[in-house]
């Protein structure tokens, strides 16, 4: 599993792959929103947590179809299916690699973009915490969606259609936690619920992902 | 009858019209596809029966 993880990370970093793209997209959204809604600091401060969450979610979405597509094309997915590690393990590893290359950088970059969007000072910590807790769920759910659509040519759009509704609970709790943090309220409840979703998704969804992969490799 | 609907006449009539239109569209589509598939299947079955 560690070898697979290292391989995926290397591939993501080397081949000009999704690594920088997601971050650039995240930055672009953070630049476009003030241009769209106007530069008033108060307005920006109010919508900043929500915008950052939506932007992070869309940035995650961008690189999802790469999770299995390349491996499916060159046949290494079939090899992985016959490898000694169970397919569930492959699913977890893939999700982890995706998170390390997308979710984690997004989380780390978020405070910088918060600056651009005039996020109130007390909001930074909770924004980062909420993203750190929530983005793993985005990766796990996204891996499931990628497994469903791996056999479909040009499945990218379909993948978004399938995955976005599944992202709703994560988005609601994550953005709510970040918002409450920015307003100086206690973000404990949404954070706990967010952590619950991440834990539940990480524990259960890999089984569904593996099942979907088996069906697609049949 | 319609005059008795009062100031909400528009809302009531529109929602009935929209719903009935949607239901009829669904029924129509289902029937159309049912007929199309049945005809196609019939044609293939007849052809294969003749060949055998």
């Amino acid at each position, binding site marked *: 599993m560690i070898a697979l993880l290292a391989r995926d990370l290397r591939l993501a970093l080397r081949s000009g792959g999704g690594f920088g793209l997601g971050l650039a997209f995240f930055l672009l959204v953070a630049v476009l929103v003030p241009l769209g809604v106007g530069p008033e600091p108060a307005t920006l401060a109010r919508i900043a947590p929500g915008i950052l969450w939506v932007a992070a979610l869309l940035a995650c979405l961008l690189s999802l179809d790469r999770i299995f597509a390349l491996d499916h094309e060159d046949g290494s997915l079939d090899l992985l299916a016959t490898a000694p590690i169970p397919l569930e393990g492959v699913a977890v590893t893939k999700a982890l690699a995706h998170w390390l290359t997308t979710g984690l950088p997004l989380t780390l970059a978020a405070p910088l973009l918060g600056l651009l969007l005039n996020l109130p000072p007390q909001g930074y910590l909770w924004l980062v915490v909420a993203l750190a807790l929530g983005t793993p769920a985005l990766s796990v759910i996204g891996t499931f969606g990628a497994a469903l659509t791996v056999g479909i040519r040009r499945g990218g759009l379909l993948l978004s259609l399938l995955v976005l509704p599944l992202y709703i609970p994560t988005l609601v709790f994550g953005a709510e936690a970040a918002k409450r943090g920015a307003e100086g309220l206690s973000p404990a409840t949404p954070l706990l619920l967010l952590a619950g979703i991440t834990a539940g998704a990480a524990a259960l969804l890999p089984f569904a992902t593996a099942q979907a992969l088996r069906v697609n490799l049949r | 009858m319609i005059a008795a609907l009062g100031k909400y006449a528009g809302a009531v009539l529109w929602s009935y019209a929209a719903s009935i239109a949607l239901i009829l569209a669904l029924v129509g589509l289902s029937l159309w596809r049912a007929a199309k598939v049945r005809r196609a299947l019939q044609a*293939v079955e007849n052809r294969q029966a003749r060949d055998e």
Partner: protein
Amino acid sequence: MSLWEYANPKKFMQASGLVLPWVTGLATLLLIIGLIWGFFFTPEAVNFGSSVKIIYLHVPAALMAINAWLMMLVASLIWLVRRHHVSALAARAAAPVGVTMTLIALVTGAIWGQPMWGTWWAWDPRLTSFLILFLFYLGYIALWQAIEDPDTAADLTSILCLVGSVFAILSRYAVNFWNQGLHQGASLSLDKETNVADVYYLPLLVCIAGFVLLFLSLVLLRTRTEIRARRLQALLARERAA
């Protein structure tokens, strides 16, 4: 293709062929009675005026929108566990009916909300959950249409339906948490003393029964179509192979 694969659909075709005209007839009858009763012969409500008449479409459609998803969930489970082809095809057949019901509930709700709340749309938990349900239906249908091989499609959509159900319920609670709403609570429930008055209740029950039967008849019809389409594909494939 084994004999078993034909056996069950064949039985289903026979049985459903017998039942379908009756169900369809009864559904049409009940819908006509219920809607005419509701539209012409119910008094105006104190707070709602004549707009209360929308309830005869809004509530049954909303109920069926949720029940259709439940039926798809059960059918998907049967397919995953027992591998009955009819079950998978029934789930596929139900989805467009469910999406239409969701759409009716949303549209009548918007038209009703305009005079009542002064807005077509509000980000109220119930409205939002229905919109989310609509998105789930769209994804499900899109996945069915994207995959060529019917068994793979059945498997993957079933998995999506199971996972989607869990997330749909999660979304429902998330949305509740996110915003308290304008929408009144459920006005029909068995354990409450104060349901809507009988004048509205009886035609509403007739309409609900009519919608249930309409759903049943459409699903039967569409499932029969899907079975025929499968058989057609199988025959054509055999023809090509020969």
